[in-house]
């Protein structure tokens, strides 16, 4: 039969090994939590990842073995690559997508444990509904849309396999999910668990399994983040790579800070003057000129602020190129951390300025100034 062939094909694609099954189970852990988070209004983008991902830990969650989750494991791969440039937790949204889809199926299968076409249609509808809800999330849900139709089809095929599994003596357990009192408008009062053959079903091992699978999900995120970890299998080796990476980054920071300290003892960061002179009125292409005078081998210490302020404005009017020669009449009376010589007067001048200067106006030009650096 076509569907059977399709089933086996997808199965082979996903390599229905134990590892994948575990991964399939793990993706459903986040079902209820993400469900709530999606449907509840997420206020801002600065929600903590720990808050987001720690929620499953606070519950004694039961897993619903939805066969469609096997398909979901293949789904995150393209979205990971799409979001590769975004270092910060691209797979958050991927997990949200997974949970969106899996929670739909959870709701669908919950109604009837056995074969019938009703849950599939309802799951289709609720998929669309949930899809609309998920659309309100940031734009990364686009990747999930083409996959909506597929899981529904797969689900039907997988259901048949599921019954075979049941016949093999898998156990079933139901527990009241503790998330009834939570915000989500769609309630899931009972979550049925279907464990694999030979696995214990008491609460401790289930919780431990949930925890382990959560850890595996995080490890996958880490593997995406650290370059070169994708091909490595095995937690210990991946951890090795991560440790190496962190150590190398820390060493780089040390080295760079030493380098910055030693670049030139007479280099000044005259950001104060920048702030006072240019209060955000510079166009962008002038900013490199502003930064250049900062990083300046100090020629003279004397000079008053007036002079060099005027000179900086003069320079700003030109079209400077980064690294181009600059006039040598720049006077940099201020001193900074990166300079040896510091005259007392200029330091006090500085002191007065920083304390009294409007910090707000400082921040905006600072950012724009150094943005050019970046």
């Amino acid at each position: 039969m076509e569907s059977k062939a399709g089933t086996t094909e997808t199965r082979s694609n996903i390599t229905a090994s134990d590892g994948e099954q575990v991964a399939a189970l793990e993706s459903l852990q986040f079902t209820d939590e993400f469900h709530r988070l999606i449907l509840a209004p997420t206020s801002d983008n600065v929600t903590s990842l720990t808050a987001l991902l720690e929620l499953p830990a606070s519950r004694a969650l039961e897993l619903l073995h939805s066969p469609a989750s096997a398909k979901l494991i293949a789904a995150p791969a393209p979205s990971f690559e799409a979001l590769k440039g975004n270092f910060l937790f691209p797979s958050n949204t991927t997990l949200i997508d997974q949970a969106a889809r899996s929670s739909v199926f959870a709701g669908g299968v919950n109604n009837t444990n056995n074969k019938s076409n009703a849950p599939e249609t309802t799951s289709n509808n609720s998929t669309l509904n949930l899809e609309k809800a998920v659309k309100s999330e940031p734009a990364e849900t686009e990747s999930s849309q083409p996959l909506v139709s597929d899981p529904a089809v797969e689900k039907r095929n997988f259901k048949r396999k599921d019954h075979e599994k049941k016949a093999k003596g898998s156990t079933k357990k139901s527990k009241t999910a503790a998330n009834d009192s939570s915000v989500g408008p769609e309630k899931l009062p009972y979550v049925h668990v279907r464990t694999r053959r030979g696995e214990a079903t008491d609460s401790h091992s289930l919780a431990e399994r949930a925890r382990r699978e959560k850890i595996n999900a995080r490890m996958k995120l880490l593997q995406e983040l650290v370059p070169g970890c994708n091909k490595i299998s095995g937690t210990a080796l991946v951890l090795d790579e991560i440790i190496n990476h962190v150590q190398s980054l820390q060493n780089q920071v040390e080295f760079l800070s030493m380098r910055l300290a030693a670049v030139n003892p007479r280099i000044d960061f005259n950001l104060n003057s920048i702030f006072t002179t240019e209060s955000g009125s510079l166009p962008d292409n002038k900013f490199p000129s502003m930064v250049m005078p900062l990083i300046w081998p100090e020629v003279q210490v004397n000079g008053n602020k007036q002079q060099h302020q005027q000179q900086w404005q003069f320079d700003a009017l030109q079209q400077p190129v980064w690294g181009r020669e600059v006039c040598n009449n720049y006077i940099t009376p201020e001193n900074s951390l990166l300079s040896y010589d510091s005259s007392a007067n200029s330091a006090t001048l500085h002191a007065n300025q920083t304390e009294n200067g409007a910090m707000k106006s400082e921040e905006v030009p600072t950012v724009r100034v150094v943005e050019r650096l970046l």
Partner: protein
Amino acid sequence: MHLPHSTLKQEFVKKWIMGLQRCKFSNKKMSIFERKKAIKLSADTAMASARKGLTCWSRALISNPDRPVPTTTRRASSACKKIVKRSRRIRRTAKCGAARKGQITRSIAQCLVRKRTQILKSLIPGGEFMNEVCLIEETLDYITSLRVQVDVMRSLASASARASEPHN
């Protein structure tokens, strides 16, 4: 934490510059090592505060900014210990007579993983107090922040090097 890379950079730069300015007034003359320490301290604090207290490592870093420089001698010793332990365990199970290879490898793997997590805990600021789940999340965040820090510092160093060239 859906902060994109660039806003994190901006936050870090802002706070770093503020920190550097404040350091200015403390010591008129500093040796190069003191300056390096001050730079690094202000950079680390800026990076941690750019996180706005959402992560555990940032709070730990702010409260205890002085961390020992990571050493690289750990790896060889751990590899040796691993070999010794493995041989010991195999000898032990050979004595018992049980041919449970799966369990042996699993326990060895667990031991390795445990060692690695201990090392990772020592690397991440404030890592000793986290469980495994939190540790991995903190590592994710810490790695991205370190990357941002390295990027900014590197661009600054290269810019200053370029600027000082024509005047030497």
